C-alpha cells in the first residue's frame, strides 16, 4: 500500500469520496425511479439525478458542526451530508427503521444530529428555517454556517425574499445555494423568473451572488468554500447559483413534454459523473478500473440497502401513530396528557 501511496494523487481520497457520493446518489435515484414504476414505493419522490455535483460539491465545503436545510428534491443533499442509503431507502418505504421512523418519507428526510435540518415539501418552506439556523449560529459565536438549498422556483416565493433580506440585514452566516435546474415543475425559468440569473437577486439584499456551472463538482465546491469562508468570518450571507439540470421529470408522473429532446441531450452530454470521472482520469487520480470498482461497490451498497429496506425492515406499529407530535404531551382519554405526571 505504501508503495501506491507515493504515486497517489494528493486529492485521490477526496475525489474518490466525491465520485463515490455522486455515484451513490445516481444509483439511489435510479433505484427510486424503478421502485416507483413498479409501485413498490408509495407516495411522491422527486429525483435528484443530474444535479449530483451541486449537492456533493456544496456539502464538501462545510464541516460536521455546520447545518444544511433541504428540499423536496433532497435525497442528494442527504447523501452528500453523510446519509446512509439503507436508512434513506427505509424512510422512503415508510419503514420504522427509516431516518424519520417512517413518518416523513421522501420529502421530509432529516438527520438533525448530523446537521441536516430536514427537507420540506413546501417550495421555499425551509429558507426562513435556514435563516433562523443562521441566526442561531451567529448567536453561538462559533463560526458555524448554514447551507440553504433551494431551487429556481423557490427564488420567486415570498419566503425567499423575506429571508434573504433578513440575512442581509442581520449579516447571518447562511449560504443560499440555488439549484437552478431551469424549470419549476413544467414552467421554465424563462417564463417564470423576471431575471434569468438568480444570482442577480443577491444585490437586492446587499449580499454577493455568483452563478456557476453546477455540473462541475469542484467548481461548486470552490464557490461554496469562498462563501463559507466569508460567512465564518462574519462577512454575512451569500447567494451561490448553480446552473444544473434534472434528468427525470418533476415527479414520476411527469411526461416532460415541456422540454425538448435536444435540450435534454445537451445536458446528458454534460453528465456531472461522467465529467468528473473523465476529469479524475485525466488528472491521474483514478483509473478506469478503479472507477468501475467504485461503481460496483456502490451497487453492492445499494443492493444491501434495498434488502434492508424492503425485506428486513418492518412497518411502524400503528401504536406509534400518536407519538412525537409533542415533546411533552401525548393524546390521552380527555385530550392532551403530559408524558409524565407532574407532582
Amino acid at each position: 500500500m505504501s508503495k501506491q501511496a507515493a504515486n497517489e494523487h494528493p486529492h485521490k481520497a477526496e475525489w474518490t469520496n466525491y465520485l463515490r457520493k455522486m455515484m451513490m446518489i445516481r444509483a439511489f435515484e435510479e433505484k427510486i425511479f424503478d421502485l416507483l414504476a413498479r409501485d413498490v414505493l408509495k407516495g411522491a419522490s422527486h429525483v435528484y439525478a443530474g444535479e449530483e455535483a451541486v449537492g456533493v460539491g456544496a456539502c464538501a465545503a462545510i464541516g460536521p458542526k455546520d447545518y444544511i436545510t433541504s428540499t423536496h428534491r433532497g435525497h442528494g443533499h442527504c447523501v452528500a451530508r453523510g446519509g446512509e442509503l439503507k436508512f434513506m431507502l427505509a424512510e422512503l418505504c415508510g419503514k420504522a427503521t427509516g431516518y424519520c421512523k417512517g413518518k416523513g418519507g421522501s420529502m421530509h428526510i432529516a438527520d438533525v444530529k448530523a446537521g441536516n435540518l430536514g427537507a420540506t415539501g413546501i417550495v421555499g418552506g425551509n429558507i426562513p428555517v435556514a435563516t433562523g439556523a443562521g441566526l442561531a449560529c451567529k448567536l453561538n459565536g462559533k463560526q458555524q454556517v448554514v447551507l440553504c438549498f433551494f431551487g429556481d422556483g423557490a427564488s420567486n416565493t415570498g419566503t425567499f425574499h423575506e429571508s434573504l433580506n433578513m440575512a442581509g440585514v442581520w449579516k447571518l452566516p447562511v449560504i443560499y445555494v440555488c439549484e437552478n435546474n431551469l424549470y419549476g415543475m413544467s414552467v421554465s425559468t424563462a417564463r417564470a423568473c423576471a431575471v434569468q440569473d438568480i444570482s442577480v437577486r443577491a444585490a437586492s439584499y446587499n449580499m454577493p451572488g455568483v452563478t456557476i456551472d453546477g455540473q462541475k463538482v469542484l467548481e461548486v465546491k470552490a464557490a461554496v468554500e469562498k462563501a463559507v469562508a466569508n460567512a465564518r468570518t462574519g462577512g454575512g450571507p451569500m447567494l451561490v447559483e448553480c446552473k444544473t439540470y434534472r434528468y427525470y421529470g418533476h415527479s414520476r408522473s411527469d411526461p416532460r413534454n415541456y422540454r425538448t429532446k435536444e435540450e435534454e441531450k445537451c445536458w446528458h452530454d454534460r453528465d456531472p459523473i461522467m465529467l468528473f470521472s473523465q476529469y479524475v482520469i485525466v488528472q491521474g487520480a483514478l483509473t478506469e478500473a478503479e472507477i468501475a470498482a467504485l461503481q460496483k461497490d456502490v451497487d453492492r451498497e445499494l443492493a444491501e440497502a434495498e434488502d434492508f429496506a424492503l425485506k428486513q425492515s418492518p412497518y411502524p406499529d400503528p401504536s406509534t401513530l400518536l407519538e412525537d407530535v409533542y415533546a411533552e404531551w401525548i393524546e390521552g382519554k380527555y385530550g392532551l396528557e403530559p408524558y409524565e405526571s407532574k407532582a
Partner: protein
Amino acid sequence: MRITADDAKTGKHDMAEIHYWQAVRDALREEMIRDPRVFILGEDVAIYGGAYGATRGLYEEFGAERVRDSAISEAAIAGAAVGAAMCGYRPVAEIMYMDFMTIAMDQFCNQGAKNRYMFGGKTCVPMVLRTEGGAGRSIAAQHSQSLEAWFLHVPGILIVCPATPYDAKGLLKAAIRSNDPVLFIEHKMLYGTKGEVPEGDYVLPLGQAAVRREGKQITVASYSRMALRCNAVCQKLAGQGVDAEMIDLRCLRPLDLRCLLQSVKKTGRLLLVSEGCADNNAVNEVAMRVMEHAFDYLDAPIARLCAANVPVPMSPPLEDAAIPNEAAIEKAIREILK
C-alpha cells in the same frame, strides 16, 4: 418554584399590582435572565418596546443581539424562530396582530408544528409565537380577529390565551420553558388591565384551567377577555340568586377537560363564551368533548355565545354589537336556567 392560585390568594408571597403588558414583559425578562438561549424577534419589539409595550425596556437591558427588530416579514420571523429553535435556542417571536398570522402560517403550521413528528421525534421546536387579537379598538376587520380556532385544527401547536396579568406571566414562562411550539395569544384590550402578581419566579402549568367562582347551577366557561366579562356577570348574578360556576380555560390546548367535566357533572348546564365568530368556533371542540364524556349529566343542551359571523366592523357601536357583551352573557345564562 410553582405557585398555585391558592398561594397567590393566601398572600403567601409578596404581591404587586401590575399591568398585563408588564406581566408579559416581566416574564420575558425573567426568562431571558434565567436562560441565555431565550431571545426575542419581531417587528418594533426592540427600540419601540412593542406595539403594546410588551417588550418595553428589554432592548435596553439585553441589547440588539437578543432583542431583534425585524423587517415586516411575518414568514421570515416565524420561520427563523423555527430554525433557531431546532438549533437549540428558545426564540420568542412576535406577530404584532393575530390577523397577520396568515402570512406566517406556512412556517408556523407546516414547518414548526410538524417538524418534530415528520422527523421521527428526532428534533423539537421549543419556540413561542406571541401575538394578540380581539376587537375593541375600532381598527376593523384586519386588525381585530380572534383566530385561535384555526390553530386548534393543527396538531403540534399548544395554544394559550391568558386573561389576567397573573395568568399571562405564569403561562408565558411555562410556554418559554416548554419544548413544544406554543401560540401565546394576548388580547389588545387587556394590556392595560391590572392585576395582582406575585413577585419572584412562578410558573403556571399548561393545561390547567382556573375556577374563578364556584357554583352549582350552571358552568360558564370562557377564555381571554370574554372570561373577564363572564366572571363579572357571574359575580353580579350571584347577588340575584343565580349560582354560576365560572371557569377560565386559560389554554385551548392542552384543554383542562377534567376541570370542565367535574364542573358539568355538578351543575348539569354549560355555557361557552368566545370572541371568535360562531362558525366553527374553538368552543365547538370544547362542547363536543364535554358532550362525549358527560352526556348523561347534561340537564340542558350545551350552549355557546360567540361573535357574529361578520368581519369585525369599525364603527364602535357595531363593533360592540358584534362580540358578546355582559348583557348577552347574562341573557344566555338565564335562558339556559329556564
